């Protein structure tokens, strides 16, 4: 009866164990947590890992070696043009109109296929989709070189954006000027002076990589729901009061909830980061710290929501009120350029920027520490608010 009193750590550990047991009994959240994890990991590996940044142009031209060389040179230099030479103007029109299919063989040759005519699909060949093309008339170079006007037709699918249609017309004119020996009326700058920032042409950040912070966010969000649901049910059923009858103090309960929520969210975030190949020998420390800070942030929100929610619907409703604004920076990553000022003050912005910078742009502590510091400051504010709200709620029971 008068055994040695349990230490605070032992009490907290006992409450954490109870919470994990309770969580594992809630089949809905266990199911959803596992489902979302599998779903996000699956989606990540399905999304393309490269960015297609070239315009595919069908070309029909005969006997104009100079033109072919010029076009090829433009394509090779920029990496933004993929040329698809076609055997006839009719083939070019057919491929763009969708009546014919174009395939590139292993040897690099282009073959066309008329499916309706019963043509077999070429073996070991990759389908090339051509939406715009240029048909140069025979002997185009001669009149062009002598400055005599000649006609060139640009064929375009109606869905091709107007700026690309316009650019193709401009390209043809520029080629004609070039063949005619008409130099540019301006002095072009050196290539290395015009690129600002890291040149990522051919090495763009893929959609898959941009999705990483969003997936981490969703996993953390899911655990917010789980923690909030657990807290609200304990508050509503007054289990928390039963716990306080034991030697456990309110501080122990709050500490246990913090540890439980953080461990739950952190473990899943880390599983996700490992499964999507984000953790490397160089970045693991930053990413683990970022995941820990994120887990603490969402634990704090889970405490507030759990204290406010009266039932399942109420919990979902209040959680969405918090979570939706926090999701905005995760979506903002998909857009090029600087996020608006109002997005930069959202608490999750620093967290998302840290994960993006480290996992997609190979940044390190030196680059992301301001984001980590800002997020940490937000976590302190949110955690204090979460503790205060939950403490008040328990005391009011």
């Amino acid at each position: 009866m008068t055994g040695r009193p349990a230490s605070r750590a032992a009490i907290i550990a006992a409450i954490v164990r109870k919470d994990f047991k309770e969580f594992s009994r809630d089949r809905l959240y266990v199911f959803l947590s596992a489902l979302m994890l599998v779903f996000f990991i699956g989606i990540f590996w399905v999304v393309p890992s490269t960015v297609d940044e070239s315009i595919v142009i069908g070309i029909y031209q005969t006997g104009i070696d100079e033109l072919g060389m010029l076009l090829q040179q433009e394509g090779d230099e920029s990496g933004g043009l993929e040329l698809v030479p076609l055997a006839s103007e009719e083939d070019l029109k057919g491929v763009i109109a969708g009546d014919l299919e174009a395939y590139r063989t292993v040897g690099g040759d282009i073959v066309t296929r008329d499916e309706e005519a019963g043509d077999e699909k070429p073996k070991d060949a990759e389908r090339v989709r051509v939406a715009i093309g240029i048909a140069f008339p025979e002997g185009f170079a001669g009149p062009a070189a002598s400055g005599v006007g000649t006609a060139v037709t640009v064929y375009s699918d109606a869905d091709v954006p107007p700026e690309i249609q316009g650019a193709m017309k401009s390209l043809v004119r520029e080629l004609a000027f070039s063949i005619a020996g008409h130099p540019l009326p301006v002095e072009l700058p050196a290539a290395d002076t015009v690129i600002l920032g890291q040149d990522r042409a051919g090495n763009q950040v893929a959609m898959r990589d941009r999705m990483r912070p969003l997936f981490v966010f969703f996993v953390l969000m899911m655990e917010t729901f789980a923690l909030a649901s657990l807290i609200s049910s304990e508050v509503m059923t007054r289990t928390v009061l039963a716990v306080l009858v034991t030697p456990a103090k309110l501080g122990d309960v709050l500490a246990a909830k913090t540890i439980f929520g953080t461990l739950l969210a952190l473990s899943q975030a880390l599983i996700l980061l490992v499964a999507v190949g984000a953790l490397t020998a160089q970045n693991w420390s930053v990413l683990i710290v970022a995941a820990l800070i994120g887990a603490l942030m969402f634990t704090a929100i889970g405490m507030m929501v759990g204290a406010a929610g009266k039932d399942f619907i109420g919990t979902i409703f209040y959680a969405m009120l918090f979570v939706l604004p926090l999701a905005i920076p995760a979506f903002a990553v998909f857009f090029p350029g600087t996020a608006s000022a109002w997005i930069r003050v959202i608490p999750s912005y620093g967290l998302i920027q840290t994960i993006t910078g480290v996992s997609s742009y190979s940044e390190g502590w030196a680059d992301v520490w301001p984001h980590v510091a800002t997020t940490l400051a937000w976590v302190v504010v949110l955690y204090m608010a979460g503790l205060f709200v939950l403490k008040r709620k328990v005391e009011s029971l």
Partner: protein
Amino acid sequence: MSSTRAFGLTRTSKGFSLTRTLKVFKKDMAMGPRSPFFLYALVLPVAMTVILQLVFGTLFEPKPRLGLVDFGDSAVSAGARAIEGIELTFLDDVETLKRQVEANDLDVGLVLSADFDEAVRSGGKPPLELYIGGESLASTRIVLDVTALDLIRAVEGSVPPVVVELVHLGDAPSLPISARLVPLIMMYALLIAGIFVPASGLIEEKEKGTLTAMLVTPVRASEVVAAKALLGFVLAFVMSVVTLVLNNALGSRPLSLIVVVSVAAAFSALLGVVLGAAARSVTALFTIMKSSGIILIGPVIFYLFPEWPQWIAKLFPTYWMIDPIWQVALQGAGLGDVWVKVAIAVAIGVVLAAIAGVLAGRMAEQVAGE
């Protein structure tokens, strides 16, 4: 004992009463705004329209972004303004331009000195002050580069030794992504207003015991279910119309639109009461919705990707309620064009109504058993 007696009382009220149904409906309308789902139903279409149209509409169809600093009144600026499909930003100083290009706020930046046009015309070959963002796509760089050079050639006044003719092939342009997002927003409006509101309302009545209390009165279980369906129908219809208005997708045939939206609202409301009558708790409803969500949402994904085999969409039951709306509101179709699909939706609705009737009877028996 009392509940059994109470249920006995309900049996004395013969037949289905529209008056009693409307009374329950009136009560639900008065109590509805207290439910988070009711509020969601009102807010969600507006929020989704804003998020999807303003945010994702531009994400899927990004335009090349050209920044210009024009110290004179260059004809290049005037020409750039007239070009379709390029997002043009005029800035006052070179440093801001360079900063924005480096931050990927612009793809390409062009600086035109005060005497740029004069120098080009006189053959002075002025240096081209052009900046390219490191993160801009190679295709975007080409588009902006050749477009800028073409504009400068025009300033030079040289006649190109070629006439370029643009010929469009294939079908008419497909609808923009902003239009193809409308079925997705519509589906969510129907899901929340038509399915979640009546389903959660019915479950709440069961969980809180108010259903038992209502059945003490002459109200029948089928009338409670009908009232919930009516609430779902009204809310789904109103929010569908609001969604179409917000997305500027009312089409040109209002009568046809009213018919197809009514069918979709009724379809979703009937599905809502079936789920509400079948699920024992809100948690169970969420589990059902989470696990079957893809079946409900599935068909709208096919509008976003027209190159996918569209026949697959027809395998989803909700296709038959959403496609007539798509056809009438966005493709200019009339009832004559979509009547087969509407008929299939009505047929599914009749089946759902029958199931709802059976479940209402079972629900009443359960209440009596308790």
